[in-house]
C-alpha cells in the first residue's frame, strides 16, 4: 500500500488522469467494432436474446418442454413411469430448477423428487433426464408440459460466416470487390506517376495551369459527375450494343476520380527528388522514359505506396460509384452493395449482418494495420482531399 501510494505520487495525479482518459477514449472507440466481431461469432439464438457484452456469461433462461407421451409409459409394480430426457439432441444446457406452472418455472429444485399433486411425482436432473411417476395409468395423447429454468454456456460458432459466404452471396461479392479494387488501384498509380513526372521535371507550356486544375479537381463532389457519366455510359452501351455496366467502366471511373489526388500526392513527392540525379542521368543521354522507369519510379516507392493504400481503401469502401456504374446482379454486386442490400432485406438478422460486416471490413483493416506507416505519410502529404 505504501509503495503503491509512493508510486502514485511519483506518477502524479494529472498523469494518471491522462492515462485513464486515453484508456477511456480508446475503449469507447473500439467498443462498436468489438461488438460486431463478438456478435458474428455467437450462436444466432443467443445473439437474438442477449447483448454481445454478455457473450462470455452463462445465460439463464426459461423454457417449456414436454415430457414423453403416455404411450411410452411403463409399469413398475403399482406405479406407472415415464422417463427420458427433456433435451432431445443433448443440448449443452444445465437445468437449475423446474416447475409445472408457467408462473413458477423454478418451483422445484433439480435432483430431488417433487410431489406435483394427485400422487404424481417428478424427478428432473440437471442434465435433463427425468422420471415421472403416477399411481394411475397416464392418459391422453400428449406428454405433460413442464417449465425449466436452465443455464446455457456461451456458444461460439463459425456458422454465421458459413451462411453469409454461401447462402447470402457475400463470398461472390468478395471476389467482385477484389475484381473492382485491384485494377482500380494499380492503373491510376501508373497513369498518375507518369503525369506527375511530366508536371515535375519536363518543361512545357500550360504546366502551372494543369497543376492548379488538378488541385481544384481534388475537391469536386462526385455528385457533379454522376448524371452526365451515367448518360454517356448508356449511350455508348446502346451505340455499340454492349452492356453499359461493366468492370472496365468502373475501373476507368475510379481511376479518373482518384486521379487528381494521385497526381497531387505523387507530384509533391517527385518534385522533391534530388535534382542532381535526374540531371546527371540526362547528361548521360537517358531519355525521360528511361529516367522515369529506372530512377524516379523506384525512388518514389513511399509515395506510390501511400497513394496505393488510399486508393485501395477508397475503392474497396465505395458504395456510390459502384451503385451507379455496376449492376445489382450477383456477378457485379460488390461487398458494400451486398451489405446495403442485406440491411434492407435482413434488417433484424444480426447474425447475418454482423458476419457480413466483418467480412467487408476485414481486408481494409488488415491493410490498415500492416501499412499504417504509409497511410499516415500520405495523409500528411495530401490533406486537401475530402474523401
Amino acid at each position, binding site marked *: 500500500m505504501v509503495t503503491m501510494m509512493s508510486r502514485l505520487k511519483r506518477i502524479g495525479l494529472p498523469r494518471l488522469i491522462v492515462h485513464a482518459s*486515453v484508456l477511456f*477514449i*480508446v475503449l469507447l*472507440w473500439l467498443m*462498436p*467494432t468489438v461488438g460486431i466481431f463478438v456478435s458474428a461469432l455467437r450462436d444466432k439464438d443467443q445473439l437474438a*436474446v442477449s*447483448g*454481445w*457484452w454478455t457473450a462470455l456469461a452463462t445465460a439463464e433462461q426459461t423454457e417449456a418442454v414436454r415430457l414423453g407421451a403416455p404411450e411410452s409409459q411403463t409399469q413398475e409394480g403399482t406405479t406407472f413411469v415415464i422417463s427420458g430426457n427433456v433435451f432431445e439432441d443433448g443440448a449443452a444446457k444445465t437445468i437449475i430448477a423446474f416447475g409445472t406452472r408457467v408462473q413458477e418455472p423454478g418451483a422445484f429444485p433439480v435432483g430431488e423428487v417433487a410431489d406435483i399433486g394427485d400422487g404424481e411425482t417428478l424427478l428432473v436432473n440437471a442434465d435433463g433426464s427425468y422420471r415421472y411417476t403416477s399411481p394411475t395409468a397416464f392418459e391422453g395423447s400428449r406428454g405433460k408440459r413442464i417449465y425449466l429454468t436452465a443455464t446455457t454456456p456461451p456458444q461460439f460458432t463459425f456458422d454465421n460466416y458459413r451462411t453469409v459466404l454461401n447462402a447470402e452471396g457475400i463470398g*461472390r461479392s468478395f*471476389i467482385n470487390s477484389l475484381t473492382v479494387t485491384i*485494377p482500380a488501384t494499380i492503373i491510376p498509380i*501508373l*497513369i498518375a506517376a*507518369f503525369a506527375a*513526372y*511530366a508536371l515535375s521535371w*519536363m518543361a*512545357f507550356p500550360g504546366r502551372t495551369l494543369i497543376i*492548379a486544375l488538378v*488541385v481544384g*479537381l481534388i*475537391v*469536386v*463532389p462526385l*455528385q*457533379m459527375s*454522376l*448524371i*452526365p*457519366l*451515367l448518360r454517356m455510359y448508356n449511350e455508348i452501351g446502346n451505340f455499340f450494343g454492349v452492356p453499359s455496366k461493366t*468492370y*472496365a467502366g468502373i475501373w476507368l471511373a475510379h481511376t*479518373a*476520380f482518384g*486521379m487528381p489526388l494521385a497526381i*497531387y500526392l505523387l507530384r509533391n513527392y517527385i*518534385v522533391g527528388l534530388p535534382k542532381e540525379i535526374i540531371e546527371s542521368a540526362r547528361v548521360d543521354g537517358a531519355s*525521360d*522514359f528511361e529516367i522515369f522507369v529506372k530512377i524516379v519510379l523506384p525512388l518514389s516507392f513511399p509515395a506510390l505506396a501511400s497513394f496505393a493504400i488510399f486508393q485501395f*481503401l477508397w475503392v474497396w469502401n465505395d*458504395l*456510390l460509384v459502384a451503385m451507379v456504374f455496376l449492376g445489382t446482379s450477383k456477378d457485379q454486386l460488390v461487398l458494400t452493395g451486398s*451489405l*446495403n442490400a442485406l*440491411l434492407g432485406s435482413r434488417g433484424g438478422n*444480426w447474425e447475418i449482418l*454482423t458476419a457480413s460486416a466483418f467480412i467487408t*471490413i476485414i481486408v*481494409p*483493416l488488415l491493410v*490498415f*494495420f500492416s501499412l*499504417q506507416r504509409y497511410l499516415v505519410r500520405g*495523409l*500528411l502529404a495530401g490533406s*486537401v482531399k*475530402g474523401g
Partner: protein
Amino acid sequence: MAYQIFLAVAVMALGVLACAGYFWLSNKALDLVFPVGDDDVAIASRNLARRAVIRPWLFLGPAVILLAVYLIYPVVATFILSFYDRTGNQYVGLSNYTWAFSDREFRESIFNNILWLAVVPAACTFLGLVIAVLTDRIWWGNIAKSLVFMPMAISFVGASVIWKFIYDYRGEGETQIGILNAIIQFFGGDPQVWIAMPFWNNFFLMVILIWIQTGFAMVILSAALRGIPEETIEAAVIDGASGWQIFWKIMVPQIWGTIAVVWTTITILVLKVFDIVLTMTNGQWNSMVLANLMFNWMFRGGGDAGRSAAIAVIIMIAVMPIMIWNVRRARREVGGH
C-alpha cells in the same frame, strides 16, 4: 468459384497490361518517328527538340483525358443540365432552382446539411486535437492513436451496420441487444428508436462520421503539434504559464494552418455524405441530406436529370470557396519551388 477467380485475374491482368503497354509503346513510337541518329546533327537536334515537345503529352495524355472526360466535362454538363427539364431536352430556365427552394424535402436537406457542417468538422477537430495532445504524453500513445485511427479503414456502410447494432431497439421490457438502449434501460430510462427521432436522429448519424474521422484529424494535428519548436513552449514555462495557457495561447495559434486544413477537409467530406444516410435511414424521419436527395432524384419516378443536377450544382457551389482556397494555397507552394 475457381473459374470466377481465374476470369477476374485474367481481366485484371489485361487491364493493367493495356495501361503499361500504352506508355511503353507510345514512347517507343515517338523515338522511332523522330530518330536521333548520328548521321546528321541538324536533323538529330531538330528531332530531339520535337521529342521534347511531344513527350510531356504522351506522359500526361491518359491523365488529362481521364480528367477531362470524367470530371471537367461532367461538371460543365451537369451545370447545363440543371437548366433543363427531367429528360434533359427542354430548356426550363431557373425553374429547377425555384422548385428546389420551395420543396419541403430540399429545405429539410439544406437544414440538415448545415447541422452536419456545424457539428461534425468541429467535433472531429476538437476531439482529434484533444486526443493528439493526450496521447503525445504517454508511452503507449502510438497504440492508442492507432486504435482511434482504425475506423478510418472501415467503409461507411460497414460503420453503419456497426452503429445500427448499437442503436438497435427492442420493445420496452425486452432484453435490449443494442448497447445504447441497454445502458439507458440499466439506468432506468425508456429505450428509444434512436434513428427514427426527427431532428435528433441527425446527431446519431453524425456520431458515425465523427467516429470515423476523428482519427484523421488526430493524425494530422499530432504531426503539427510535434512540429512546434520546443523553445516557444519552454519560454512559456519559464514565464510561468499554466498548462491550459500553453495549450491555448502557445500551441494552438502555431497550428492554425493545420487546423484549417483538417476543418476544410472534413467539411468537404460532410457536404458529400451519402452512404451513412442511405444505409441508416435513407432520408426517412427528416434525416435527408443533399447528396442523398440528389441521388434519389436521379432515379425517382424514372429519374429527373434537371432537379438532380440542380442539387448537385448547389453542393458544388458550397464546395467552391474551399476549392479556391486550396488552389491559392497550392499556387503559393508551387511558386516557392
